[in-house]
């Protein structure tokens, strides 16, 4: 689309440099060139933002840790002791463990395949010369602007014809490649992998696939890790398509979670206990890989 030059400008530039530099090292100094430490107002504002980011989660834990009879009289600001009981009712009313397993399978497989195919294509676009490469790359970028969500009806028809509705294949296959992944790896490898290195390997007699395997892949590793992380989170939180194509008895986590509320009587202490339970896995991932996620976004990630 017409937004291509702009996306290139913002999203790709300096991705390699930023990754090498790492998260911590940046030019010191606030705007104005001073080394001045910011004051109370700055930290106050940030504290408020942080509170806004975390409070809804804390709130759902509060509600989820009380009995529903307590909730109806107003929520106390200290957690109650009912969380495990509520969590047990969640496990009784939705196939939670099955959904958790499904989410892990779907997200892992999708992330792995996106990384593999994107790195292959990105290596070709960034480092190999071939006829039509420019045009094809523009096509890849243009498709990033096309919302895949709009093809749900035919996608559903295809899945129904294949007999895949209700199975995890129906969720995995449409996510198996992304234009964003190809674009991301192309941008990264263009800067991170010197042409001379490939030439050297080629002169030593390595085939193309060996050059990819021994030189391309190792160079791509940091960007590949981030792409995997992003794809994993995006697939995990995805709702619309799994909701359409999966059976309530074989759901992913968001689909299962939504079932909690579909009952006629809504018990919020159970619904929000479920929300907490479903968020814990990604919070754990965030605790481990949050730094990478931050630096990945700062290299110009695009919403999936």
């Amino acid at each position, binding site marked *: *689309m*017409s*937004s291509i030059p*702009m996306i290139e*400008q913002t999203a790709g530039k300096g991705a390699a440099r930023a990754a090498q530099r790492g*998260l*911590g090292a*940046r030019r010191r100094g606030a*705007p*104005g*060139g001073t080394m001045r*430490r*910011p004051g109370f107002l700055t930290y106050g*504002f*940030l504290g408020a*933002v*942080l509170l806004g*980011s975390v409070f*809804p989660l804390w*709130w*759902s834990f509060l509600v989820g840790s009380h009995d529903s009879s307590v909730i109806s009289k107003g929520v106390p600001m200290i957690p109650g002791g009912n969380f495990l009981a509520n969590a047990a009712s969640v496990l009784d009313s939705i196939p939670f463990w099955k959904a958790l397993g499904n989410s892990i399978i779907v997200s892992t497989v999708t992330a792995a395949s996106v990384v593999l*195919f*994107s790195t*292959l*294509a990105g*290596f*070709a676009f960034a480092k190999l010369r*071939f006829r039509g490469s420019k045009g094809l790359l523009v096509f890849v970028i243009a498709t990033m*602007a096309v*919302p*895949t969500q*709009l*093809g749900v*009806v*035919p*996608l559903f*028809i295809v899945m129904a014809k294949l007999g895949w509705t209700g199975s995890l294949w129906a969720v995995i*296959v449409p*996510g198996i*490649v992304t*234009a964003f992944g*190809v674009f991301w790896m192309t941008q990264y490898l263009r800067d991170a992998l010197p042409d001379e290195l490939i030439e050297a390997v080629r002169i030593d007699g390595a085939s*193309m696939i060996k050059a*990819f395997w021994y030189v391309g892949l190792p160079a791509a590793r940091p960007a590949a890790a981030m792409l995997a992380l992003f794809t994993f989170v995006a697939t*995990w939180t995805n709702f619309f398509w799994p909701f359409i194509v999966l059976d309530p008895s074989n759901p992913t986590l*968001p689909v299962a979670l939504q079932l*909690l509320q579909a009952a006629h009587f809504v018990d*919020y202490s159970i619904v929000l206990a479920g929300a907490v339970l*479903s*968020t814990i896995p*990604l*919070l754990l991932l965030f605790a481990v890989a*949050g*730094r990478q*996620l931050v630096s990945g*976004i700062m*290299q*110009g*990630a695009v*919403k999936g």
Partner: protein
Amino acid sequence: MAVTDRVQSPPPNTNRRTSRDTSVKRLAFSQKVSKWDVKLSPYLYISPFFLLFAITGLFPLLYTAWVSLHSWNLIGGQGEFTALENYEFVLAQPFFWNAVGNTFSIFLLSSVPQVVLAIAIAAVLDANLRARTFWRMGVLVPFVVAPVAVGLIFNNLFADQAGLFNELLTGIGLDPVRWHSDSLASHAAIATMVNFRWTGYNALIFLAAMQAIPRDVYEAATIDGAGRLRQFFSVTVPMLRPTIIFVVITATIGGLQIFDEARVFDQAGLGGADRQWQTLTMYIWELGWGQRNFGRASAVAWLLFLIIVVIAMANFLITRRIANQGGRR
């Protein structure tokens, strides 16, 4: 390789001449292979993407157009060709226009404050902070909460009776807001969920762009006597223009497809008793899987696609114009 083979294993009993001949042939052959390797490999490496994308991305998009021109039932499958009848039907529906209005309202309520707030947060994060990584990770926490979970949590916070927000409002002597029945209030509530999830993410994108601004521009501004606020509006914001365009366009594409948060804002999932907050994507779902009419659902999908293209183009033209003017100055 062929050469070393010959040196290492001189076949004692056979004729040396023949051995050399085959190795020369082998050398030529391997050269040919290498040539094909160079020529074909790139296409081989990009083909998985293009093949799979053609099947899972491009084909459905085009097939949507085909389906939209037929009467098509979820159970019965393809019916007769009806030309533009589905489009005529949909465009005559009040619910369609209601969904268009809701989508735009929610989209504006979410994207405008989101971009403004994200720039402000980025500006603060750009300061010489202590525990920088901690703050950056802090604003990103909502990003790992699934939209459905966000929807459920805020559905509780925005509850009409005894919801936290209404408690606070009545606490300071105001009337409670009917979040689930007033149209605009429900849009504000859903927009809040979207903002909750994406503001920190966008702030980090802006932060990255801010750090790319050369520091000597600020030094020059300081020498010219510009204060920090003036510097922010006269230096930082104009220099962020490409990033702002980028964020606005991605927010547009995402914002016009809102489904998850709106879907779980009540139990029925149709967007309220009078469809006060039914978005276009929810309408597609209702037509396709509620009423089992795939033809009409596809017609709405294509209309939504056209709307997105038009808005994205308009966005781009407007912002480019502003950017050009900025460049000339």
